[in-house]
């Protein structure tokens, strides 16, 4: 649809990704990574997936950047000096070969938004009602909610969203258990430092 805009976004995205892996300053790397996330969010919006773009902008470009920068401040600012890699030519060849394979594979994919693609046909190849067209036709009547994506996330696919929440909770609890020190340990360390100060 907006292929000029998409090409511009993708060129800048590739540049940001290249910069973030080639620079030695980790802080620059983190910032260019958030730039990459933001460009990806914009390109999701041009594809019409506004909800996904919103999530990418808030989480990828916002919160993840903060976490990465904290991690950098707590560890090292610069990536270590790397020795010159051996077997440079074969590696490059393997990389190019793999890229060519991916591009060849992508030619077999259906066009975006193609109503006649095998995935989007209604009835589906198995002769049943296509889930996507069922959602599009019935979301408003089923849940009185104009935003179809919300109905799919919270109602039709409620299990998936619940699972997602449990995964997030598990991640938070794991950070809590690994990183947060207990009161006894804190007391012990304080006593040790008191003794040291005296």
């Amino acid at each position, binding site marked *: 649809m907006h292929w000029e805009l998409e090409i511009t976004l993708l060129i800048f995205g590739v540049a940001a990704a290249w910069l973030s892996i080639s620079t030695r300053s980790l802080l620059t790397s983190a910032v260019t990574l958030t730039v990459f996330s933001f460009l990806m969010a914009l390109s999701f919006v041009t594809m019409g997936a506004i909800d996904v773009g*919103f999530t990418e902008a808030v989480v990828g470009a916002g919160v993840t950047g903060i*976490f990465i920068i904290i991690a950098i401040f707590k560890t090292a600012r610069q990536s270590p000096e790397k020795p010159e890699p051996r077997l440079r030519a074969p590696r490059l060849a393997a990389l190019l070969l793999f890229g060519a394979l991916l591009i060849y594979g992508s030619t077999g994919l259906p066009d975006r938004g193609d109503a006649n693609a095998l995935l989007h046909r209604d009835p589906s190849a198995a002769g049943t009602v296509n889930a996507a067209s069922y959602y599009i036709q019935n979301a408003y009547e*089923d849940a*009185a909610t104009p*935003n179809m994506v919300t109905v799919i996330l*919270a*109602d039709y696919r409620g299990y998936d*969203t619940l699972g997602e929440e449990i995964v997030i909770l598990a991640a*938070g609890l794991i950070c809590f258990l690994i990183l947060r*020190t207990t009161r006894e340990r804190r007391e012990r360390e304080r006593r040790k430092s008191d003794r040291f100060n005296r």
Partner: protein
Amino acid sequence: MKERDESPIVLIVSRILSPFIMLFGAYVIAHGHYSPGGGFQGGAMLAASVLLVRLAAGSRISELQFKRAWGTPLGIAGVSLFFGVGLAAVLFGGQFLNHEFFHLIPGVTGPMLRSLSILVIEVGVGLAVMGILVSIYDDLLEEDERREDL
């Protein structure tokens, strides 16, 4: 983290901006039925508003806004709210997460009931995401804050 330069401009701007980001996050959660967004995005924005003050002012001032101890309980409360909506449908004789059986409000049935329980779920998701993102931030920085206290 590195020594913080106390800049009054950063402090003031972050303190003025934070409530507006929070308001927009609440709007995104509540308006998810009609516009892009929903619990996850709104919750992440609520978390971002808290993290902004934490980054700019340090957690001693930011604790006035959102206590360090609240993050994990808030996350658990959000997930429990989501789970409770599903379980309530079971208690009223339906299937798990079948919102048509969520008869907590008298007089509301059918599509409106499903719409309403979607709102409850979105609020639960928003609380969970906000609480957990803030608690991960606090866990990452805990050691330094402790040293600051001493």
